[in-house]
């Protein structure tokens, strides 16, 4: 009799453990999701194969690309967020192509793809080890997605078990929106500077 009770309670225990395991099992997407590295503006953040310091976030109504005396104007019905950063590879040359702006509602805005020839954009710069480089990330946003935002940066758009930088943007309220952010192309290839007006 005792043996039968022991067997039944063992069975119940086993079923209980298996059920608990089944219920708490993480999904494949959870197991392989990017590994977050948290920080804020001004922090030097280390990902597995690159390092990046976001130095400044500026809001602007329009972005102007100046080449020689020619100006190309990019208007928006929302706002432009211009993120300046310093980035370098860590162990091996790398290109970091994915950055997005996560607003307070959780919506993610990928970098604007309207600038085909803009110099200095993060995805078009090959980063080298030991050679920090100034880069730009440009986001086109609705006004209500600007505050309490996080900038997410990773090497590729889907970065399974790779690092993703989570940079708190901390834009001051009320929003200070500048008139123009102007990128002027320099005399040598790939050279540029940013002016805010």
């Amino acid at each position, binding site marked *: 009799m005792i043996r039968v009770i022991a067997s039944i309670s063992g069975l119940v225990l086993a079923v209980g453990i298996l059920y608990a395991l089944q219920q708490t099992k993480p999904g494949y997407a959870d197991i392989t999701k990017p590994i977050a590295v948290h920080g804020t503006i001004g922090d030097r953040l280390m990902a597995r194969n690159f390092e990046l310091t976001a130095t400044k976030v500026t809001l602007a109504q329009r972005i102007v690309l100046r080449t020689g005396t020619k100006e190309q104007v990019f208007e928006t019905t929302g706002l432009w967020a211009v993120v300046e950063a310093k980035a370098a590879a860590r*162990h091996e*040359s790398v290109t970091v192509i994915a950055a997005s702006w996560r607003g307070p509602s959780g919506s993610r805005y990928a970098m604007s793809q309207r600038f085909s020839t803009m110099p200095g954009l993060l995805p078009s710069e090959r980063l*080298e080890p030991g*050679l920090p480089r100034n880069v730009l990330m440009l986001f086109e946003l609705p006004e209500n997605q600007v505050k309490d935002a996080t900038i997410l940066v990773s090497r590729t758009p889907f970065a399974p078990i790779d690092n993703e930088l989570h940079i708190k943007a901390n834009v001051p309220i009320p929003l200070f929106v500048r008139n123009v952010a102007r990128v002027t192309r320099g005399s040598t290839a790939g050279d540029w500077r940013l002016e805010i007006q």
Partner: protein
Amino acid sequence: MMATLIPPTPKERRAFRLNALALLVAVPLAVAVGSYEDVMEWRSAQELNAIVAAPNKSAIYAGAEWRMERVHRLNEPGSAALVVIVEFEATVKDPAAFAAACNVALTDASKRRWKPQLLTPSIGRRVRPEAAERPRCGSASLKPVKAGDTIKMAESFLTPPDIGDIDLIVSLSTARPTYLVLD
């Protein structure tokens, strides 16, 4: 529960032990057979064992005899980066092994790796126009080559100015996981 009520015969016990032992062999064997191709594919993409060519010496690698010719270190005015141009050559012995996808990288004592630039930086084109016109390692094997040809190649890199002693790492898909280091 039933098994505990009817005691097993010695024959059954022996069969059970034998099967349990066989599992120890069968499971690792199944894993090895199932993953063999993936492991081989992974291995052929790695750089595991080096063939090192000492300074001013050549080395046989991937059906050719490789030799470092010159290294130029150029400072672009107004830039923090150093432009490194490496000129090297290969005398082909086996065209089939030489005509393959080529990976090149520059490395120093810190073990950091710089990948080559797609285009020679402008200072390199001004100072070493001959090097800028040479094919890169990947494009050298696009043209048909025959045994006895000497292919002169060049690659350019952007590095920090304080880079130390540099090595050129070359690996061809036909020879990986073996790779070549030109000192």
